[in-house]
């Protein structure tokens, strides 16, 4: 019966930026690249790399759109992403509680 709290922890979320992206997408329907950049205070290249890895793992969806002629890429969380994030948070809680 003793469960390993580490089980729910997601390796992908060890990185603060990836965890940040997921937290923002969890409470907002759709967020643009620029808004993510502003909220997380990161560079374009850095953010883009992390977004690709989250997308490859099926945790977020990318929507490519246009505002006038400018491209407007927005991101939203997938069902799998929601599940992974909530399991990760539960595991974090367990680690905090378990080690008192």
């Amino acid at each position: 019966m003793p469960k390993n709290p580490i089980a729910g922890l997601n390796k992908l979320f060890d990185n603060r930026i990836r965890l940040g992206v997921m937290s923002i997408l969890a409470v907002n329907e759709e967020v643009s690249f620029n808004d993510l950049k502003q909220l997380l205070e990161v560079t374009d290249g850095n953010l883009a790399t992390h977004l690709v890895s989250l997308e490859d793992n099926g945790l977020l969806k990318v929507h490519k759109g246009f505002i006038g002629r400018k491209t407007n890429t927005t991101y939203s969380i997938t069902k799998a992403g929601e599940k992974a994030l909530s399991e990760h948070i539960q595991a974090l809680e367990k680690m905090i509680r378990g080690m008192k």
Partner: protein
Amino acid sequence: MNEQTQSLEAIQDIRRLMNRSSRFLSLSGLSGIAAGGWALAGAWLAGRRIGSYYDDYERNGYSLAEFVRLKQHLLLMAAAVLALAMASAFFFTWRRARQQGLPMWDRTARQLSINMLIPLVSGGLLLLALLRYEDANLLGLIGPLCLIFYGLSLVNASKYTVNDIRYLGVLEIILGLINTQFLGYGLFFWAIGFGLLHIVYGFIMWWKNERTDTKG
């Protein structure tokens, strides 16, 4: 032990980003206090202007030109109060955003503005439409409708900023609805709703969130 603090930091990070990305948190209580002050000053001036209209009415009888002028003056005063209140709200909020190191105009500020403006602009246009009439009862409804639409816009906006303004909105709506039964006292209710409530609420918000403003 180290893992424990790391987990705690991660959870705090998650919470902070969830909050910051969905709500505009730099709204300052001081802007409420300032808006209330302008509103009281405006109500006092408007009261004097209406008093002088009635003095003239007693002496010279009804004159359409005088009445139209009164409406114009009151409209100008209301616009001035609105402009001053918005300018000070903008200033105090800008100052607080800077203190918190947050951007003044971001996604959350955009959402807050749009959702606040929808009921506010609808109400404003309705009031401008009513101003064309001379029926005293219709004009008497302007005060209550100001309060009701402003309350609705606060309730709507509260989803995108600090939750406190939701209750302020509800109070404004109730006050506006009561006012519909006492049409002659519009200015009195206006002063309570836009003046007193703003000052009290601004003070509560400031006390709760800004008095010890160290972190966002």
